[in-house]
């Protein structure tokens, strides 16, 4: 594969840290030193081996129609004809679109516009619903705006204390850890993860009880007089009601619910309150629950009570997961949203987009189903009969995966855009081979809210087209003209986002290149961007942050006699998301070759399971097999499975958060047996 002669400055294809990366001659990969996330020259093994994605022999290069290679026109004509026919017979909502948090901003924008304008469907959502939706909902509720970490990552270097609730950055984004070298680290996780091993204090709660733990911490902060009353009075509203709601969450009760000793809670709160520079961060461990929004709210309440957000040197942030998990949630591939992080039911937002898109506002559909609800409705009498899938692999990554596979199987038409034959692509009527990462340009917004530029470094293989081409090709066949050049799409996105919360209108490719990224909101060409948006005021109309009282409740499914053990799921260092990419890279497969079940030696003894045994794990929704790994790093009542392989998500519970519609990936009840 031809690479360019000079090194191209771009970014890693994987997580939301978006490490700066150079691709040199011969696809030599190396870290950049001008991108703050990994300025010290760090990359993890996924990053170092990313070049192999480009040379992987199992790359898709020809459109497939019912498994047969066809040329592009045949494939796109077929798709467009079928979409038109299904829409004509069953209405526009019979066609659905499912996107991904790995797509560039340009693609996310184009996809949302394609759904609303070319298809006229309300049925669009994306896998970021499974990722960032709880943190997003809680941040919007508290601050009026969701910009994952509303501060540069390098601010953490100067912190005294950082609390991470349900995040394992040492495995999910290793170079992040370099920013935690200075502060005292407090980690909340049911497992003693690689990150927890680095911690000064590790709180190890029962799965599904992070919310109770956060309430207990705030109760103690109030009881021990650690609340920043002046800040609460000047910058927030609603504290009194929260204070009252906390009187039923005294520490000893929280201890009984969570299993975290009172003295450890007290140690954590005192450490956070004793210093000026403290941060509270949440990850998927706290967020992927049927009460994820309230859990994040409880941690934000704690941060607000201690006076952390909206000050230089302290704050709250969520640690976004997917590569463009931030940008992906801003520009309209979410069911309830329009570009610029606007709400789809806001008349002014609809008017603005109608102007950009050249259609009447009333033609823009209303909110559609959330990701799991969309998948759950596929092929049902009222649900979509056709699905266009971009940058996602729900057969592996959606909860209750057997059920989801059955729903996908019931479709009249499944079209996937991918560059490898993922488990979901293997079910598709039409597979469209697309470019990836270093073969195309586009912007990504990283976990800090910094808009970055991915540059094309290599020529794509013969036969593949970019997602933007595919979208425009289909739109054209349906009678609409769409841009295919990323820079032109970005210019349209800038105008579409103008005046919205996530305002990109002042950002250009040139500025990103010259300034190594620009923070949104950036409402004008001369505007410097906004690294720390809440220093003067929060984004609610009154400028204040809002406390919201929340109450703990049990997991949607608690262990019982039939399914007596908690299951939690998560990632391992060598793999990314559904593993569709990383399971095809030899050194990563060598590092983490197969799915496993981690269990405590005491539980293993009770179940007569030895290390290396094949174990059958079953829930009410399905079963999976994996090799036993025995470790006292996990609680006795819990097993852990990584979700990069088929199996873990056959077990997980699709119970949804009432606000964010996040499924409860992080806790369900299972039975564990040695497979005879």
């Amino acid at each position, binding site marked *: 594969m031809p690479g360019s002669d000079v090194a191209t400055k771009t970014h890693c294809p994987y997580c939301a840290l978006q490490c700066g990366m150079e691709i040199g001659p011969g696809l030599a990969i190396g*870290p950049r030193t001008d991108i703050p996330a990994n300025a*010290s*020259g*760090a*990359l*993890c*093994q996924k990053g*170092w081996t990313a070049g192999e994605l480009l040379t992987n022999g199992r790359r898709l290069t020809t459109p497939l129609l019912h498994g047969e290679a066809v040329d592009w026109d045949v494939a796109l004509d077929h798709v467009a004809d079928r979409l038109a026919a299904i829409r004509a017979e069953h209405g526009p909502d019979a066609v659905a679109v499912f996107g991904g948090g790995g797509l560039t901003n340009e693609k996310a924008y184009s996809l949302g516009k394609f759904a609303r304008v070319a298809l006229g469907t309300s049925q669009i959502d994306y896998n970021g619903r499974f990722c960032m939706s709880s943190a997003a909902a809680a941040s919007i509720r508290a601050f009026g705006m969701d910009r994952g970490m509303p501060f540069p990552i390098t601010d953490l270097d100067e912190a005294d204390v950082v609390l991470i609730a349900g995040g394992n950055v*040492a*495995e999910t984004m*290793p*170079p*992040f*850890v*370099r920013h935690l*070298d200075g502060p005292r680290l407090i980690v909340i996780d049911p497992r003693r993860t*690689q990150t927890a091993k*680095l911690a000064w204090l590790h709180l190890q709660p*029962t799965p599904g009880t992070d919310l109770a733990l956060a309430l207990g911490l705030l109760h103690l902060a*109030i*009881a*021990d007089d650690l609340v920043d009353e002046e800040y609460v009075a000047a910058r927030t509203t609603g504290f*009194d*009601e929260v*204070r*009252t709601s*906390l*009187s*039923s969450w*005294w520490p*000893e*009760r929280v*201890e*009984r619910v*969570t*299993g*975290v*000793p*009172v*003295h*450890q809670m007290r140690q954590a709160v005192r450490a956070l309150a004793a210093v000026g520079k403290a941060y509270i961060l949440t990850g998927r461990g706290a967020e992927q629950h049927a009460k994820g929004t309230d859990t994040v709210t409880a941690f934000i309440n704690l941060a607000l009570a201690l006076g952390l957000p909206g000050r230089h040197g302290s704050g709250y942030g969520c640690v976004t997961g997917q590569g463009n998990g931030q940008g992906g949630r801003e520009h309209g591939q979410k069911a309830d949203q329009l570009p610029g992080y606007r709400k789809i039911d806001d008349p002014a937002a609809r008017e603005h987009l109608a102007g950009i898109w050249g259609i009447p506002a009333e033609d823009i559909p209303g909110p559609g189903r959330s990701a799991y609800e969309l998948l759950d409705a596929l092929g049902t009498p009222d649900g979509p009969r056709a699905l266009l899938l971009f940058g996602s692999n729900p057969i592996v990554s959606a909860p209750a995966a057997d059920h989801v596979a059955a729903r996908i199987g019931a479709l009249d038409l499944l079209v996937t855009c991918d560059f490898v034959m993922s488990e979901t692509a293997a079910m598709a009527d039409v597979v469209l081979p697309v470019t990836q990462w270093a073969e195309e340009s586009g912007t990504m917004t990283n976990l800090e809210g910094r808009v970055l530029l991915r540059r094309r470094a290599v020529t794509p293989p013969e036969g593949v087209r970019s997602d933007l081409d595919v979208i425009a090709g289909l739109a054209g066949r349906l009678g609409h003209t769409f841009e295919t050049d990323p820079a032109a799409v970005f210019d349209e996105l800038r105008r579409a986002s103008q005046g919205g919360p996530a305002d990109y209108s002042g950002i250009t490719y040139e500025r990103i290149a010259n300034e190594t990224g620009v923070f949104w909101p950036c409402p004008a060409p001369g505007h410097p961007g906004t690294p720390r948006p809440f220093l003067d005021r929060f984004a609610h109309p009154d400028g204040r942050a809002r406390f919201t009282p929340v109450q703990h409740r049990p997991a949607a499914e608690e262990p019982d006699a039939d399914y*007596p053990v908690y299951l939690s799921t998560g990632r391992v*260092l*060598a793999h990314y998301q559904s593993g569709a990419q990383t399971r095809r890279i030899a*050194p990563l497969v*060598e*590092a983490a070759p197969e799915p496993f079940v981690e269990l405590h*030696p*005491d*539980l293993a*003894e*009770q179940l007569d399971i030895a290390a290396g045994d094949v174990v059958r794990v079953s829930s009410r929704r399905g079963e999976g097999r994996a090799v036993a790994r025995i470790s*006292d790093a996990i*609680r*006795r*009542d819990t097993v852990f499975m990584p979700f990069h392989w088929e199996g873990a998500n056959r077990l997980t519970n699709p119970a949804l958060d009432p606000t964010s519609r996040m499924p409860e990936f992080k806790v369900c009840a299972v039975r564990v047996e040695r497979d005879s």
Partner: protein
Amino acid sequence: MRLVVVGNGMAGSRLVSEVRARDPQMRITVFGAETCRPYNRVLLSNVLAGSSRPEQVRLLDPSWYDAHNVRAVFGSAVAHIDRETRHVVTADGRREPYDLLVLATGSDAVVPPIPGVGRAVPFRTLDDCERIIRAAGSARRAVVIGGGLLGIEAARGLAGRGLPVTLLHLAGHLMERQLDVEAGEVLGETLSGLGVEIRTGVSASGVEEDGVRLGDGELVEADLVVLACGVRPVTGLAADAGLEVRRGVVVDDELRTDDPSVFAIGECAEHDGVVYGLVAPAWEQAAVAADVITGGKGLYRGSRLVTRLKAKSVELAAMGETQLGEEQAEVVRFSHRARGTYRKLVIRDGRLVGVILLGESDAVGTLTQLFDRGGPVPGDRAGLLFPGLSSAPVADSPTLMPDAARVCQCNNVTKGQIRACWEAGARDVAAVALATRATTGCGTCRDAVEGIVGWLCEQEGVSV
């Protein structure tokens, strides 16, 4: 459906919230004898000790009732239940009809019938608490009568306010219902170290101007005397209405009394022969009763009792049958009195049936949950009492580490690969990093890589 709740304490207010959460429509009226809104009794010890403010113990804001369409009648005691016409009648003659009635009348402090007891302050309500705090401001010595949970918390709280305190207790050791003899003694020693003088096996025969007169005639000087002599369920209303009352108002597994339209929950209720005096059972009962009242299914099967002392610098958790000895159960015990540490596990049929943990312990959360859930006790008992004991870290010294050990997690580099790299000529971390990418991810293995390279270099020196 009209629901009337008598009592707006911890059980009654909880029931009201639980019912409202399940049914936004039901007409709810709650009568509270105390004039203020409900508060969390569990936190009164913290208020007494000064570690919680009175406003922090409120369970509901005044606006809650309007916002949730609940009629609350404060300061109006219900005097009579007319079961025939299904009305409650207040002392001031007001009649309120009900379809379902819940009694959550709680309990009263036991006041021992000794001369001068009127000079003492019981420790039961928020008002009591505020009275004690006011008195403590000018008092020089305090006596607390009763060495149960509340008495100890009160004594510790007063001592924390700088007051010399004597704790008088009738039984031979403190908290004799929850603790075995040795634990009671260790607890006493801990409290003594915090300024609480412990007198066990003594009875008070009278409260006098200058203090408390003991049974043997001795006077224990004090100008503040606090009573913590237990509680007695308030059952008069139920008894007058002809409901079955033993120690408490007798209820079945649905929390119904012998009149199916009348429920009782909390400290006034007696279920399966047990009257509970802790908040957790009352709240469990409130949840079940709310299920039943709103037409759902719910059965209450009794509660497991976990007692957690809330007293600064005294960590104590006690649960279940702590007094069982070796002849009745498997007992695992560790005692280190010099440090105020005493730990005991009582195991029967492979299940944890009793626990005492005195002194700070990381095991408390795990053991409480194991006791609550009734799950099987792991074979490694010592590991339960001493978390971390069985997981001594694997030696990460370069010499002892096997070649297969992964040194750099981020780039999957083993000690063997680093050794090979060294053998190929790399003599420092930078050279190893260049060849293997070790240290280039999170960077936390840098010291380990340095150690291995250094050790290999040393070995070379030795062998030369």
